[in-house]
C-alpha cells in the first residue's frame, strides 16, 4: 500500500452563517487519482482550495508528508493547481506562462528551456511557444495551464473542474489524456468535479461529498454498486430508491414482498433504503413469472438502450434494457439478490472510511 501524502483532519471552513466544509477527515496517497465529487456547494472546491493554500481553514489540520501545512502560504507549498478557467497570464506568451514557476525559482535558462519544451511536447503543444495565449482555443489554453502546473514537478496536482468549459467530445478526450498523464508521471492528482461519469471514468478513489460532509469514499465500482446511503445512490448513476424493512440478515421486505439479498449487519426489522439500478431489473413477458408485476407506461429510445417506466401497484420503476417492451404491455420484473443494495436509512454521512474490501 502506497505512502500517505496528504491528511485532512477535522477540516472545517465557514463563511458567515454557512459551513462550507464540516469537519472532514480524509487520507490521500502517493500516485493516486482522487476525485472529490458532489453537487455545487458541497464543499469540494473549498476543500481543494484549502489544500492549495487559497483559503484558510477555520478548524482542523492539513498535513503534507506528516508536516502541518496550515500556516504555510500558497507560494511555499509543493502543490500546483490547474484552475477552472485556466487563469493564464494574458500578457505573456505560452513559453513564458509555462516557464513562470521555474523562473521564480531561478532555475538556469538552459534547464528552463529543456523542461518547458519537454512539457509542451507532453501536452501536445510543440511549436506553440511564442503564441499569444489569447489566440488559443479553450482546449489549448487548458493544456497550457496543465503544462504550467506540471513543469514544476509537484508531488500533488490540484484540478478544479478543469474540463467544465470544454465541449463534450473534447472533454472525453482530455479525460483520457489526463488519466494517462497521471499514470505516466506517477504523481497524485486531486480532481474536483460535479460530473459523476467523469469521476467514475478517471479515478482510483472517489470521495462523494454533500453539504460539506463526506458521504462515501471508495473505488468507482464500490461507489456505484454499493452506495451506502440514499444521497450517494441518487447522485451516482440512475437508480430506483425504495423504502423497505430489513427483516433479518439476507432478507429484506419492500412493496409487500420479501426478497433475498446479500447484505447483513442490520438490526431485525430495521427500516432501510434500498437501491436497484435500472439496468439490473430483468423483464419477463409472462407477468406471473416475475417477482413484481407491472404495466409499461413509457418507452424512450436512448440509443444505448431503451429506458422504460414500469408501474407496479406501489410505484414506478425505471428500467433500462436493450429489448423493448411496448407501452401498455403487462410484464413481470425480476432482480438478482446481489443487485439489491441495502443502505442505512437517511443520508447520514460516514466519517473517515477506508474501503478495504
Amino acid at each position: 500500500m502506497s505512502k500517505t501524502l496528504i491528511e485532512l483532519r477535522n477540516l472545517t471552513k465557514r463563511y458567515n452563517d454557512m459551513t462550507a466544509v464540516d469537519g472532514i477527515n480524509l487520507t490521500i496517497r502517493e500516485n493516486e487519482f482522487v476525485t472529490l465529487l458532489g453537487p455545487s456547494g458541497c464543499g469540494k472546491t473549498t476543500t481543494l482550495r484549502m489544500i492549495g493554500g487559497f483559503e484558510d481553514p477555520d478548524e482542523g489540520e492539513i498535513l503534507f508528508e506528516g508536516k502541518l501545512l496550515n500556516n504555510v502560504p500558497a507560494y511555499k507549498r509543493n502543490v500546483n493547481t490547474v484552475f477552472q478557467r485556466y487563469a493564464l497570464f494574458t500578457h505573456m506568451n505560452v513559453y513564458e506562462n509555462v516557464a513562470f514557476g521555474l523562473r521564480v525559482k531561478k532555475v538556469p535558462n538552459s534547464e528552463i528551456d529543456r523542461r518547458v519544451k519537454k512539457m509542451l511536447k507532453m501536452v501536445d503543444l510543440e511549436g506553440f511557444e511564442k503564441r499569444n495565449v489569447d489566440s488559443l482555443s479553450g482546449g489549448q489554453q487548458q493544456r497550457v495551464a496543465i503544462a504550467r502546473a506540471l513543469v514544476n514537478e509537484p508531488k500533488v496536482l490540484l484540478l478544479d473542474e478543469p474540463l467544465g468549459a470544454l465541449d463534450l467530445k473534447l472533454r472525453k478526450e482530455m479525460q483520457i489524456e489526463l488519466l494517462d498523464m497521471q499514470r505516466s508521471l506517477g504523481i497524485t492528482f486531486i480532481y474536483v468535479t460535479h460530473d459523476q461519469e467523469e469521476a467514475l471514468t478517471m479515478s482510483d478513489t472517489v470521495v462523494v461529498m454533500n453539504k460539506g460532509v463526506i458521504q462515501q469514499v471508495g473505488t468507482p465500482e464500490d461507489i456505484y454498486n454499493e452506495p451506502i446511503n440514499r444521497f450517494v445512490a441518487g447522485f451516482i448513476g440512475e437508480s430506483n430508491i425504495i423504502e423497505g424493512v430489513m427483516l433479518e440478515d439476507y432478507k429484506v421486505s419492500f412493496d409487500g414482498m420479501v426478497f433475498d439479498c446479500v447484505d447483513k449487519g442490520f438490526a431485525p426489522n430495521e427500516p432501510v433504503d434500498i437501491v436497484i439500478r435500472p439496468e439490473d431489473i430483468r423483464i419477463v413477458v409472462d407477468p406471473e413469472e416475475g417477482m413484481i408485476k407491472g404495466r409499461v407506461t413509457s418507452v424512450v429510445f436512448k440509443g444505448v438502450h431503451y429506458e422504460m417506466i414500469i408501474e407496479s401497484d406501489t410505484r414506478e420503476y425505471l428500467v433500462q434494457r436493450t429489448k423493448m417492451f411496448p407501452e401498455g404491455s403487462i410484464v413481470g420484473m425480476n432482480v438478482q439478490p446481489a443487485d439489491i443494495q441495502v443502505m442505512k436509512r437517511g443520508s447520514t454521512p460516514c466519517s473517515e472510511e477506508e474501503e478495504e474490501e
Partner: protein
Amino acid sequence: MQRRGRGRIAYPYTVWMVIFIVVPLFLILFYSFTEGDIHNLKDLRFSLNGYKKVLEPIYLKVIGNSFVLAGISTFICLIIGYPVAMMIANTDAKYRNLLLTLFIVPIWMNFLLRTYAWMSLLSPNGLVNRVLLWLGLPKLEIMPGKGAVLLGMVYNFLPFMILPIYTVLSKIDKHVIEAAHDLGGNNVITFMRIILPLSVPGIVSGITMVFLPAVSTFVISGLLGGGKAPLIGDLIEQQFLSSRDWHFGSSLSIILMVMILISMAVMSRIDKSEAEEERRKI
C-alpha cells in the same frame, strides 16, 4: 434598420461639426500662419512670425515649465494614486464601491472652488501657515508660485489617476493572482511580474487624464501661480484677451495641440508595445 440610407440622419450633425469644430480650428491654424489686423481680411499676409515668437527664450521657458510641472505632477499622482487604487481594489466587495465613491466625489466639486480652496489655505495668512507658526515651524512661502501650482495640479487631478488604475486592477481575475502564488510567486514577485504589467493600460489612461489637462491649464497657474509661474495656458489667454496678438496666440495653440497629439500617440504606442514585448519574450 441597418440599411445604408439611414446614415443620412447624421448629416445635419456633420454640417454642425464642420461649422463649429473644423472651421474654428482652421481659423486658428490660419491665424497662426499670418500676421496683420484680424478684423481686416485684406491686411492679412502669410508670415511665420507667430511661430518665431514662440522660439524666443522667455516663451520657450514657459512651454518648458508647463511640461516640467505637468510631468512632475503626473508622476506624483501616479506614485500616490497607484497604491490607493490597489488598496481599494483589495477591499471587500461590500465596501469597495463606497470607498471608490469617497475618493471620486471631490472631482464632482467645482474645479475652481477646489483650486480656490488651496488659495485660501496656502496664502501667507492662511490656515497652513497659522498651524506652522503655532508649531514653531517656518512659514511656507510657496503661494503664489511654482510649488503652489504643483500642489494644485496634484490635488485637482489625483482622482483621475486613481479611477482608471482601479478599474483595470479590479478586472484582473483573482484566479490569475492565485495562479501566480500557486507557482511559487510571493507577493512582491506577483506584483512586479503579473499585477503591474496587467495594470499598464490603466496607468497609461491615468497619465493621459492627468498630464493633458495639467499641461494646458491656466486656472491653476492663474490663481495659485500669481504670475510667477506662467504656463502655456496663461500665455494663450493673455494673447487672446489682453495683448490681442491673436497670431502669436494661435501659434501657441497649434503648438499645444500638436504636442498633446504627439503625447497621446506616444501613450498609445507604449500601451501596445508593452504587450507586444511580453509576447515576444523567449
